[in-house]
C-alpha cells in the first residue's frame, strides 16, 4: 500500500497554458472522433440487438405473437414509442400475430426484491381485461429461492388470468393487484405468494400493480388505436 504515492503533478518546469490547452485539444479531438465513430458504427447492430431481445421477451409472455410495436401511453393519448419517455407517460409494447391482429399488450413492472430490483414483463389482454402471463427480465435474487418466481408452476398459475379490470371511472384498477400469504388466494386479483420466497414473489406483484395502475387508465380508453400495427413495425 503506498498511500503516499499521489497523482498530484510533481513540481516540474511550468508549461505554458497555451501548450497545455493545445495538447488537451488534440487528444480530445482524437478521443471525440473515436467515440463518435464507435457510436455510429455500433448504432445499428445495437438497435437490432435490442429489438431482438425485446421481441424474444415479449413473445415469451404473449405466445403466438409475431411482431412488436413500441408505444407510449400519455394522458393525451397513445403515441409511437421513442427513446425518451416524457413525464407521466408509460411505455408499453403491442404484439401482433402473423395476420397483424393484436395478440396482447406487454409492459414492464419493477419493484425492489430481496437483494435488488426485480424487473418483470407482463402480458395484458385487453379483451379479458386480465394479465395473462409474466416473465422475468432481470433480477439478482438468491438462486434456488428467488428463481421460484419463474420456476414454480403454482405461482405462475396466478398470472394466467389475473384480474386487472378498471374501476368505473377508469382512473384506477377496480381491485389493486395484491400478493397474499401462501394458500390464502380467494379473488382473481390476488396473487398467492410462494412460501419461502415471499419477498421476491411479493416484489413481482408490487411491480405489476404499480405499472398497471399507471398504464391501464391511460391505455384502456384508447386501446383501439393500437389494434392494428402501424408506423415503426418490426418485419
Amino acid at each position, binding site marked *: 500500500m503506498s*498511500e503516499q504515492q499521489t497523482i498530484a503533478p510533481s513540481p516540474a518546469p511550468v508549461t505554458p497554458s497555451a501548450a497545455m490547452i493545445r495538447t488537451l485539444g488534440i487528444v480530445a479531438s482524437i478521443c471525440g472522433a473515436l467515440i*463518435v465513430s464507435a457510436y455510429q458504427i455500433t448504432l445499428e447492430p445495437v438497435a437490432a440487438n435490442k429489438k431482438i431481445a425485446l421481441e424474444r421477451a415479449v413473445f415469451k409472455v404473449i405466445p403466438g405473437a409475431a411482431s412488436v410495436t413500441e408505444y407510449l401511453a400519455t394522458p393525451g393519448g397513445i403515441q409511437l414509442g421513442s427513446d425518451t419517455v416524457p413525464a407521466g407517460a408509460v411505455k408499453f409494447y403491442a404484439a401482433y400475430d402473423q395476420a397483424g391482429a393484436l395478440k396482447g399488450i406487454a409492459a414492464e413492472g419493477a419493484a425492489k426484491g*430481496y437483494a435488488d430490483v426485480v424487473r418483470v414483463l407482463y402480458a395484458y389482454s385487453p379483451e379479458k381485461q386480465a394479465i395473462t402471463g409474466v416473465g422475468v427480465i432481470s433480477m439478482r435474487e438468491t438462486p434456488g429461492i428467488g428463481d421460484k418466481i419463474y420456476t414454480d408452476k403454482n405461482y405462475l398459475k396466478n398470472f394466467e388470468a389475473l384480474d386487472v379490470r378498471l374501476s368505473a371511472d377508469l382512473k384506477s384498477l377496480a381491485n389493486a393487484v395484491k400478493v397474499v400469504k401462501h394458500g390464502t388466494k380467494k379473488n382473481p386479483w390476488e396473487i398467492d405468494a410462494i412460501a419461502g420466497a415471499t419477498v421476491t414473489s411479493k416484489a413481482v406483484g408490487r411491480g405489476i400493480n404499480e405499472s398497471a395502475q399507471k398504464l391501464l387508465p391511460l391505455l384502456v380508453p384508447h386501446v383501439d388505436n393500437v389494434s392494428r400495427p402501424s408506423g415503426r413495425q418490426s418485419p
Partner: protein
Amino acid sequence: MSESLSSIFIGTLLANNFVLAMFLGLCPFLGVSSRLNTAVPMGAATTFVMVVASLCAYGLNWLVGQFHMEFLRLISYIVIIASAVQLVEMFLKKNSPALFRALGIYLPLITTNCAVLGVALFQTAREYSFLQALTFATAGGAGFTLALVLMAGVRERLNFSTVPQVVQGTALSLMLAGLLSLIFMGFAGLGASAE
C-alpha cells in the same frame, strides 16, 4: 419505479453495501482499512466526494439527455469526478487546512475509487430522481465507511493474533471481507418489504 428514500438508504447501507455486496471501492477498502484512525477520515472524504459526484452526475445526465449525447456520458462523468475531487481539495486547502492535512493523502486516490463512479453510473441506470440519487450517494458513502470501520476494527485486533504466515497480507483481508460480506447477507431484504 418509485423506490422510497428509506428503502434506498437502508438497502444501500446494509443489504447492498457498496463494498461487501457490490464490490465497489475495494482498493481503498483493502488498502486503508488497517487502522481505525485512517479508516474514518478516508470514509468521510469518500462519502463527501460521492455526494458531490452524485449531484454533478445528476445535472450532467440531464444535460446529456437534453442534447442526446449519451455516448459522452461516461467521459463527462469521469471528468467531472476528477474535477470535483480537485475542487474539494482546493476548497479544503483554503478553508480548512486541518481537515486538508487529515484527508490530504486520500483525496487524489478517490478519483480512481470505483465507488464514486459507481454511484454516478448506478443512479443513472436506475433512473433515480434528484432526492433518490442524493440518498443513494449518502447511503453508499455511509456503507463504504461502515465497511471500512468494521474491517479496521477487526484488523486492529488481528494484529495481536497468531495469524498463520500463509494467510497474512491481502489473502487475509479478502477472507475477512468475505466473512463480513457473508454476515451482511443477514441484512438482505431489510427495507425491501416496507409496505
